[in-house]
């Protein structure tokens, strides 16, 4: 615990003195949580001290970058630049100037780690004279936990990850954790997808099953989503009728859906595996004897129904709808699985059609699998895809630069779907390291990549950047590992007794678990807000939360987060606690500023912390005037004003 107690509140001892020094730490917030905590502890001392509750953690191993492949990376990046240059010439585009180190460090941190760099990191980079420092920083960041955190946020939006209920009585947390771990260990992308598509079992035993459980009860929509996410193709319209804007027929849709239709997500309560009879009714009856207050309703459903949820193959056959109206099939006719494009998927003897489908979908020979992820990650880095929209590729979609997209796709295959290595190449291109395009980018025009486009930070990037500014060890906190709840919730219905379920439910609601959770959170809370990485907060956050105000998705649909501005965002930035925590004397910002003695030095700290650059002469004059007029409060005003600039919110 003593190690963990650090983050925001590191400077506890110096609070009183420093507050007087700068003045701007005072606010209307009353005593800080840490001070409150101390006085409580003082009173509690009379009693025998309780041992601190256990705070279980998850071991995290982040895969590092292999520095020996650097020359290959550089060569591949150069090849990409040749292909981009060809289009500059073809379309008479003048590329943007090379980004300054200041612009680069801020962008690379946001793109790879999901946050602005800290003051210390900005200083270190500025003072580094190594000609390869950009390339080396890319390698470092790809090998740190921030990479997994940032890309977890990205996949959460695509996969609609929820920590709470994934489907009826099934928690999503184990699946979320599995996605996070797959990113930490840099699981090859094809393997990542294959494991989701072929998973069997319950969420606690095989968390990758969460992918199929997410669309439980919607087998046709599930196929639609899978093809859209991983093959960048929209076949949804063909679910009800032949696709009006693409070539897919309803029959083809059904043939695709037939691969996975024989997959069930719920065991029947009468399944033989539970020993005969209705196991749920039986256990409910028994529960009434153990728990007098139990009315036979839904109270124990997280144990009863939750443990029926399981992905397994029941080999059900899919038939065309009863009102099927085309000549190529009859209503209610059973359809055999057949793949949409590319080398046909043939079901081998004894193989589940779902496995065949997963092999076909993730194969390097699939014409859209590698292409879709290559295009996706290109868009993630540049702000625009080579084909747009990235999830509506058609036969006649013309990439902005077909040779480039072909090359990127072949690189993805050569790298065996090593996403980190692919991003490493993209970030090493000259094109990526140019300034963001200044002029308005018209969505209707083709974009020739003179540099990345200007993007507003995602909700998670804004939040994580504030955490970076305020908190001493922003990457320290971990959410509760899935295994804690799994131990309570996962049970074998064939053997479970009412007594055991009752006992586990008591455990679930017991004070011990609550105390452990409070202990986990307490050092990271400020005005009721848990100041930790967005990826360590449950997904999605409730509607009023900072993250939702800045556009976090509600996780009900695929990729619906938003980077639009709004009035509540501005109010949050003006008056909300997240901005004002930067002005508190316990914040990292305060410590860094007060470590400098002169107003000039302090102004540099503020600018470098927030914008990763020093103040321009004009800005310096304005800031000095502010400090001269308002004294110490002036520093607070400068900080407040800088985080409220557009420059802060946008990724150059």
């Amino acid at each position: 615990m003593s190690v963990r107690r650090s983050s925001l509140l590191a400077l506890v001892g110096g609070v009183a003195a420093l507050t007087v020094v700068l003045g701007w730490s005072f606010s209307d917030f009353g005593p800080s949580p840490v001070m409150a905590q101390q006085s409580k502890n003082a009173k509690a001392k009379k009693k025998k001290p309780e041992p601190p509750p256990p705070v279980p953690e998850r071991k995290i191993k982040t895969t590092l970058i292999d520095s020996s492949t650097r020359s290959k990376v550089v060569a591949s990046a150069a090849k990409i630049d040749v292909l981009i240059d060809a289009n500059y010439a073809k379309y008479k585009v003048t590329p943007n100037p090379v980004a300054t180190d200041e612009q680069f460090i801020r962008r690379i941190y946001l793109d790879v780690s999901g946050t602005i760099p800290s003051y210390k990191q900005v200083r270190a980079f500025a003072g580094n004279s190594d000609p390869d420092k950009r390339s080396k920083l890319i390698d470092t960041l790809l090998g740190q936990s921030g990479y997994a955190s940032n890309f977890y946020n990205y996949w959460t939006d695509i996969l609609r990850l929820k920590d709470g209920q994934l489907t009826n009585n099934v928690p999503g947390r184990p699946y979320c954790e599995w996605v996070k771990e797959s990113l930490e260990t840099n699981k090859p992308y094809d393997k990542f997808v294959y494991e989701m598509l072929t998973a069997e079992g319950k969420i606690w035993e095989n968390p990758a099953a969460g992918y199929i459980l997410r669309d439980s009860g919607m087998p046709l929509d599930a196929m639609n989503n899978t093809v859209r996410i991983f093959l960048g193709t929209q076949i949804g319209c063909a679910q009800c009728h032949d696709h009006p804007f693409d070539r897919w027929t309803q029959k083809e849709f059904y043939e695709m859906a037939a691969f996975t239709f024989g997959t069930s997500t719920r065991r029947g309560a009468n399944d033989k595996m539970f020993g005969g009879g209705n196991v749920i009714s039986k256990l409910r009856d028994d529960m009434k004897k153990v728990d007098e207050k139990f009315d036979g309703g839904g109270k124990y459903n997280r144990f009863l129904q939750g443990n029926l949820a399981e992905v397994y193959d029941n080999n059900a056959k899919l038939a065309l709808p009863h009102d099927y109206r085309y000549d190529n099939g009859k209503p209610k006719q059973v359809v055999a699985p057949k793949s949409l494009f590319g080398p046909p998927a043939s079901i081998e003897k004894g193989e589940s059609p779902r496995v065949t489908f997963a092999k076909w979908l993730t194969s390097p020979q699939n014409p859209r699998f590698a292409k879709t992820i290559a295009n996706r990650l290109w868009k993630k880095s540049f702000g625009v895809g080579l084909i747009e929209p990235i999830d509506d590729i058609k036969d006649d979609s013309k990439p902005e630069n077909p040779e480039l997209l072909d090359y990127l796709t072949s690189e993805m295959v050569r790298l065996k779907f090593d996403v980190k290595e692919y991003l490493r190449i993209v970030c090493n291109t000259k094109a990526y390291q140019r300034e963001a395009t200044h002029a308005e980018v018209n969505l209707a025009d083709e974009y020739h990549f003179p540099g990345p486009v200007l993007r507003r930070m995602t909700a998670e990037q804004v939040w994580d950047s504030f955490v970076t500014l305020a908190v001493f060890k922003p990457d320290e906190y971990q959410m509760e590992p899935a295994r804690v709840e799994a131990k309570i919730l996962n049970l074998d219905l064939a053997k479970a007794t009412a007594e055991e379920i009752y006992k586990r439910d008591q455990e679930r609601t017991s004070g011990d678990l609550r105390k452990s959770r409070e202990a986990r959170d307490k050092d990271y809370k400020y005005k009721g807000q848990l100041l930790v990485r967005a990826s360590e907060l449950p997904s999605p956050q409730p509607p009023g939360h900072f993250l939702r105000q800045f556009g976090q998705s509600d996780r009900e649909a695929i990729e619906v987060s938003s980077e639009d501005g709004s009035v509540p965002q501005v109010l949050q930035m003006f008056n909300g606690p997240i901005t004002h925590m930067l002005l508190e004397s316990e914040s990292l910002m305060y410590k860094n500023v007060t470590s400098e003695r002169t107003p000039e030095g302090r102004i540099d700290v503020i600018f470098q912390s927030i914008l990763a650059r020093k103040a321009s002469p004009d800005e310096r004059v304005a800031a000095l005037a502010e400090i001269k007029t308002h004294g110490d409060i002036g520093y607070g005003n400068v900080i407040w004003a800088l985080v409220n600039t557009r420059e802060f919110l946008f990724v150059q």
Partner: protein
Amino acid sequence: MLTDLNSLDFPSRRMFLEYAAKTMLGVTVVPGLMGLRGAAAFAADDSKAKDKGAKKPAASGSPRNASAKHVIFLYMNGAMTHLDTFDLKPGRETQGETKGINTNVSGMMFGERLPELAKIANQLAVIRSMHTETGDHEGGRYLLRTSYKEIASIRHPGMGAWALKVLGRQNKTLPDNVLVGGEARHPGAGFLEPAFTPVPVGDPNAGLQNTTTPKYLTGESFEKRMQLIDKFDAGFRKKFPQKQVEAYGEFYRQADQLMHSDELKAFDLNQEKADVRDKYGRDQFGQGCLLARRLVENNVRYVEVSLGGWDMHTNIYDQNGLPTRAAALDRAASVLIADLAAKGLLSKTLVVLGTEFGRSPKINQNAGRDHHPGAYSGFMAGGGIKGGRFYGTSDKDGHSVDQDGVTPADFNATIGQALGLPLEQEFFSKSGRPFKVAHDGKALVKLFA
């Protein structure tokens, strides 16, 4: 592209089918399209065509029905089942477990889960012939809110933004376009000025948050800080003259204005008595409707309130399915309409209930209903609408539209008509492309009193 067709005025079912086929295919009007695949879906059964006789095309685009000063749009997120709410099919297998109940208008029947709305059916014009192009949630929502299909190259404005663009701001200090409990992605102001973007309120109980400056800041020091922002931001803004950057300027201005507004308490539900809050229901939708009423009382133009959870693919009749959603809708919408009427606001407030599409007549293997764009329902009340009737019909199983089909564009044109928006006028995006308020939809002028 639909100027020569009128949804109110199909002389025969065949003509409607042609119309439907053409709009479904998203192509311009070309003779002989019936042969195309896709069109066949709607051409299957022409034998029972009812010739309703030619009627005069309804005038649209003239603001003659413009009596609404406010719109409250109740958005049923996830696609509300039509067969269990407003489009009952008693005796049919597709009806499922829902029974019909009588309303206060003879011959008008609602689903049994809507007993309170049934008591004020005389206020409601219920449309049972909505149909749309897509069974995809995001696509359907976008289409219903903008009248246009979602494409990558431009974003179209929602109706609230159109209203502000054309009519100007009605309330000068409070936000005039508000979104209560909506999802992150909303078309907002589309290609129009960011000033018309709806202000989202995630949780109506919390209202508009962070509207007061810390106590230690005086008005003067706040002003000073604003000037500092301007100074520090000047270089960046000059370098990136982009709409997404400039948009924040407008949000700063509105936020600043709002913080100093005396009317801010309109957003504070604590100003209401507990029993009033209870009456609306303490769920998010109920409190959202109460907030909408307070905003309209304060002269706010356009408020959208969403009620999620209608995507009932499994166990639709389980307690946390239809019964819970329908109860929330029934309670809040009925109290809202009654309250508006009691305060004399209903005649100038159009209350609209809309959803992205309907749910399949066939109950699936998981005891749920799937997506169904072929036919669905909505209603309008107040704002010059004559209630107590149904508009349009679906076929015997609620599968397709039988009579008086209404597209999302027609639906929005009707809202535009009530507000007095010029439906024929072209507005140009920055790239010079022309757009209309409701994409050539035809207002259902028959709905107006």
